[in-house]
C-alpha cells in the first residue's frame, strides 16, 4: 500500500459544552447502533484484517465518545468516517511494524454467514481479490469508489460527507471506476477466464 494521504479533515464538534449525561449516553448508543456496520466495513476496505476489525471499530467509537464530550458533531457520519480512516491507517502502520501480529490473526477472519466450504472459499477469494483491487486505487478515488459502489451512498451524500464539491466526487468516482475495471481486466487475463472467479 502506498502513502496514506488523509486529506479529509476530521470535523470538529461544535464548541458546545456537554457533559456525560443519560442523554449523551443515549445519543452515543444511537450512534453505535446506526453506524457500527459502516465503520466496520470501512476498516476492512482500508486495510484492516477482519480478525481485528472489531477492535479497530471499537477504537473509533471510544475516540468518538471522548471527542463528543466537548460537543456533538453536526455530521455524525462524516465525523466517524474521518476517525475511522485515521484508526485504519494506525492499524496498518502497526501491522507494518509488527507484520506477524495482524497477519497471524487473519486466519480467524472467517465470515459469519453460513455458506458451505466451497462457497466460503469462493467468497473469501472474491473478497481478497476485491481488497487487492481497492488497494491499487489511489486514496482519494478509493474513498469515493468505496462509498459509492460498496456503501451505496449517492454522490450528493459523499460530497456532503467529505466536504468536497459534487463535481470532484464525480471525477474521482469516474477515475476510480476506470481503475477498477482495469484491474478486473488484469485479473481476468491472469485467471484466463472471464465471468467467474
Amino acid at each position: 500500500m502506498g502513502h496514506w494521504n488523509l486529506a479529509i479533515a476530521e470535523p470538529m464538534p461544535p464548541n458546545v459544552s456537554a457533559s456525560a449525561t443519560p442523554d449523551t449516553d443515549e445519543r452515543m448508543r444511537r450512534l453505535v447502533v446506526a453506524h457500527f456496520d459502516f465503520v466496520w466495513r470501512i476498516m476492512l476496505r482500508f486495510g484492516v484484517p477482519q480478525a481485528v476489525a472489531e477492535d479497530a471499530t471499537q477504537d473509533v467509537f471510544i475516540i468518538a465518545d471522548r471527542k463528543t464530550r466537548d460537543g456533538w458533531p453536526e455530521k455524525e457520519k462524516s465525523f466517524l468516517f474521518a476517525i475511522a480512516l485515521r484508526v485504519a491507517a494506525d492499524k496498518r502502520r502497526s501491522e507494518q511494524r509488527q507484520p506477524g501480529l495482524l497477519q497471524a490473526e487473519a486466519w480467524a477472519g472467517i465470515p459469519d454467514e453460513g455458506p458451505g466450504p466451497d462457497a466460503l472459499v469462493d467468497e473469501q477469494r472474491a473478497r481478497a481479490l476485491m481488497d487487492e483491487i481497492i488497494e491499487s486505487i489511489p486514496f482519494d478515488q478509493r474513498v469515493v469508489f468505496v462509498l459509492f459502489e460498496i456503501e451505496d451512498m449517492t454522490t450528493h451524500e459523499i460530497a456532503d460527507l467529505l466536504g468536497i464539491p459534487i463535481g470532484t466526487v464525480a471525477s474521482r468516482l469516474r477515475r476510480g471506476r476506470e481503475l477498477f475495471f482495469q484491474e478486473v481486466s488484469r485479473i481476468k487475463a491472469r485467471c484466463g477466464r472471464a465471468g467467474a472467479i
Partner: protein
Amino acid sequence: MTDPKRIIQGPEGTLETALLRSVRRQAPPAQAKGRTLALLGISTGSAGAAALATVSAKAAVTAATASTKATSAAALALTGKWVVVSIVGAALAVGVAREMSPSGNATSRAPVASHVSGQASPRATQLAIATAHASAKSAEPSELATEVLSAESGVSKRAIRSFPDSTAPEKPRDPSNLADEVAVLDKARTAAVAGDPARTLRLLDSYQRQYPNGNLGPEAQLLRIEALVQNGQSSVALPIARRMLKDAPSGPHAERIRGILPAADSTDGESKFRSNSAASATSQ
C-alpha cells in the same frame, strides 16, 4: 446531477458484480455492537446480555487450541506486570477448556475453535485466560473507601456509588458478564500501555459502574492503582494498594502491590513516588 448506474446493477454473473457483491454482503459479528456499547459503559439491553454467554463459551473452546496464543496474550499484559498471573491463567484456561470438551481431547476441537475466534474478537484467548483466572482465585474482599476516591481521584460519583463495601458480604458474581468485563479491562490495559492514564481511569470507571461485583474486580483495582500512579495521583493509589494487600495478603496481586508500597511507606516516599510516576509517564 444524476448519479451514474452502479456497477452492481450491471449484468449478473460477471466478475465485476461478483467481486462487489462479496464485499457488500460483509457484516460484523452479530454481538459486536453489544460488546462496543458495553465497552463504552452504555446499556446494552438484551442484545448485549445474549452476546455474553455465547462469547464466554466460545472463549473457553478457543483456549483449547490457544496455548501459543495464550503466551502472546500474556505478553500483552501490562508491560509484563501481569505475566506471572497470565501464565498461570493460561495454563488453567487450557485445563478448563479440556474439561469442557466432551471428548476430553482439546485438540480435536481445533477447527471449531478457529472458526469461533473469527466471530468473536481476537481477545477471546485473553478472555479464556481471565475466565480460568477468575475461577481459580478465591473471592477477595475488595476495594477502598469511596470518600478517598471521590475527594482526590476524579472518579465519577456514579462509579463510586457502585463500589462494593468491603465490610459487606460479597454479592454473588455473574460469570456470564465475563466477556464484556474482559473487553473493558483489555481496553483499559491498552490505554495504560499507551500512556493514557486518564482514559484508563475512565474505562475503569465504566467497568466499575457496570460490574460493581465483577469477576475481575481485583484486576481492575490493580490496574486502577497503576493508572493513578501513572497519573501522578499516588496519594489516592496508596490507600487502595494498602487495602488490597490487607484484604488479600497472599492474593495473586500481592507481590505486585508490595512492589508499590515500600516507596510510599518511607518518609519521603510520596515525593519519590510522584517523581517515579512522572518519569514513567514521560517515558511512555
